[in-house]
């Protein structure tokens, strides 16, 4: 009888542990899936900049979007999209590497990437690599870009 109780307790512990492990692993998988989505959003963002696609930026950026450019210029959503539309600005190449999703929750994500840019803007040469923090927020079930801070990597 004592053995039967012992076995039952043993089985319960195994079931509880397995359920816990399963729960943790499914949570981890969900986080990995979300992190993958955020990495894709990073590429969509920079592709839109490269392709001069204000429609995608309008869709992607949150209403209160803010970005600090290299040199310290602070722009809001409208100003950033207007710059993308500006024909005097040329982006020959822009892409992210080393995307590191530093923080992710159900409604907030923050990543760090290395962005390579080749281009001219207002006569200023933007060729180089940059360290960038990008922030995403989930609004009505959809991830949106909330902002970015960009600093040039100096040799």
């Amino acid at each position, binding site marked *: 009888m004592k053995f039967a109780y012992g076995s039952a307790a043993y089985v319960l512990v195994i079931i509880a542990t397995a359920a816990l492990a399963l729960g943790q692993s499914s949570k981890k998988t969900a986080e990995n899936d979300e992190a993958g989505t955020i990495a894709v959003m990073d590429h969509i963002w920079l592709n839109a900049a490269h392709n001069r696609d204000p429609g995608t930026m309008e869709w992607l950026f949150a209403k209160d979007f803010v970005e600090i450019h290299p040199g*310290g210029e602070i722009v809001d959503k409208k100003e950033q999209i207007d710059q993308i539309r500006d024909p005097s600005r040329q982006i020959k190449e822009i892409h992210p590497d080393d995307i590191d999703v*530093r923080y992710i929750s159900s409604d907030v994500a*923050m990543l760090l990437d290395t962005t390579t840019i080749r281009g001219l803007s207002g006569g200023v040469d933007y060729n180089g690599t940059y360290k960038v923090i990008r922030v995403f927020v989930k609004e009505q079930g959809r991830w949106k870009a909330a902002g970015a801070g960009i600093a040039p*990597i100096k040799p």
Partner: protein
Amino acid sequence: MKGFQLTALAAILMFAPLAFAQTQPNSSAEEETLKKFDHNWLDAEKRLDIAYCEKNFADSYVLVFPNGQVYTKKQWLDILRGPDHPVITFLDPEDIKVHLHGNVAILTDHTTLKGHDSKGNSMDGEFNVFRVVIKKDGNWQAAGVVMNALAAKK
């Protein structure tokens, strides 16, 4: 009976907005909290208050210097607590703008820094700074910083 029902209805109508206000924090009050957080954060770094930073920096904290150098929370706090820590005599954020998105806020500010590194090299400068603050378990925590040096005024 009718009087009781009317009193109950009046009480519900009176307390409902109060309960709603408590669940929806006033955004301007939250903005003030975040501006104060920015000041407290820089004050703590200036006086090398590692305990404050340990408590109020998220584990995911990352700091990007104007030259693109990146530090994690551990790397940055190891510098502040180490023998080669910088000496900061003035560190003040001005013109703080709060962009609040629920559980994350992006702050932009103009920070003035005066001080020197452990070798005596000047660190004086003016910076436009991008700060990420996340709300976790009801508390705001510093999660990210990108500093951009502004050209010296002529």
